[in-house]
């Protein structure tokens, strides 16, 4: 029973969602909408669970002076500060939460993203070598696309942006489409196996 009941529930839920995708009839659409609402509520609770879990693990690491415990103090204080600011003062423009978001979180995350430019430049110098025919093709294509995406490339050759667009629309798209179709077929196959009860790993490792 511990196995059969979840498999039956998965079958009914899976089939309902598939049928509701193709048929807007209320018999299928209404229960499907209700199940989507359940999914939204459950994922919202996952946030609460996530916050509780990270707080518990971090507090434990601080108590036992575990790895990076000083950073975990900062994390816990930041978590508490933002949570408190949001709950007490609200999240509207001009609130403490909003100020922290715009003046702490936004610049810090943007800085992390911007660091990519430095790492890419360094990595390109150290690792991007024409060691084989494939690597040479990749390298030449990368240089063309990089040049074609900036105005200086157009100055060098007026046809470069159009050539870059051709690379994106023909060879790139052929490869991407192949990958996407393959991934979609894999997802359909896994989904069907779960719905039909052939794939039961979601029930636990010993099932």
């Amino acid at each position, binding site marked *: 029973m511990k196995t059969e009941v979840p498999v039956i529930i998965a079958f009914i839920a899976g089939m309902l969602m598939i049928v509701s995708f193709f048929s807007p009839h209320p018999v299928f659409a209404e229960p499907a909408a209700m199940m*989507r*609402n359940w*999914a*939204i509520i459950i994922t919202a609770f996952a946030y609460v669970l996530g916050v509780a879990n990270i707080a518990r693990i971090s507090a434990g690491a601080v108590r036992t002076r575990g790895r990076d415990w000083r950073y975990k103090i900062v994390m816990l204080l930041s978590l508490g500060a933002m949570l408190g600011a949001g709950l007490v003062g609200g999240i509207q423009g001009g609130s403490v939460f909003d100020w922290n978001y715009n003046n702490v979180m936004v610049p810090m995350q943007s800085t992390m993203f911007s660091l990519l430019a*430095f790492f890419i430049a360094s990595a390109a110098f150290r690792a991007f070598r024409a060691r084989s025919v494939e690597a040479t093709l990749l390298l030449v294509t*990368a240089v063309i696309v990089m040049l074609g995406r*900036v105005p200086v490339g157009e100055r060098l050759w007026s046809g470069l942006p159009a050539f870059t667009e051709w690379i994106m629309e023909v060879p790139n798209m052929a490869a991407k489409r192949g990958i996407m179709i393959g991934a979609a077929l894999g997802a359909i196959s896994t989904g069907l196996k779960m719905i039909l009860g052939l794939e039961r790993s979601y029930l636990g490792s010993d099932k």
Partner: protein
Amino acid sequence: MSEAGDRNGIIQKLSQVDRRLIYLVVLVCAVVPLVIGARVTLSVSPPVRGLFDAVEELPPGSYVYLAADYDPGSLPELYPMNIAFVEHLFSKDIKIIAASLWAPGPPLSQRVFDDIAPRYGKVYGRDYVNLGFKEGREAVMVSVAEDLRRTFPEDYLGTPYGEIPMLEGIDNLTDVSLIVNVSAGYPGIKEWVQQIATRFDVPIGGGVTAVSGPEMYPYIQSGQLVGLLAGMKGAGEYEQLLGKPGLGLAGMAAQSSVHVAVIVFIVLANVFYFIERRKKL
């Protein structure tokens, strides 16, 4: 030491250049164009033109659902797009319903509205609304498409759906003329296309980070995306079409010089590599 030996030593040193020097070159290339206010002119690519034209064709008073599915991590590339979209939509008197599937998204939408709405005399609740964040990914997309009120019973600041004048008569995504998605990853534009485009027959366009751009080309060719902005270049092109140079065009001058620096590094590295390889043969 012989002259050839000196030359080999120099090449070896150059090929192992300190990464801090590379960082310094990148920093200079990024900062100088921004400091001197360099401006560039871009050629507009068809996917950008497609989205611009799709907005141009909307009659005044139409509704657009602006899904701000990004966070401050991708702000340098996507924020200029968000600004350009809102500028364009407001200039056409189109009403905007903003929402996000990313928790940090709504404050970014709000920031754009707060900056731009006063310039066009737009009023919150009458011309635009920010419905905030909802967790649930694809389930929320379909839920929004079927019943917007049920999915977002109140807006970002807690105002009930029924008390927002512009949402009167707007029940689901079939009541909007276009979905514009600013997307930093999952859930984002790909999922909007997969869940909504064909099933609910609502046109979708949007902007993504440069690194995600190539993945979206099949959807443009199939017509499931009416247009696409990829990275800062896409934002710059859109600003150019709009005739309002902003962060995108300003950033493109810096990005241009950094691209050239990276290309020079790649070429130099390969020149050193081939010289060393020939030496070893």
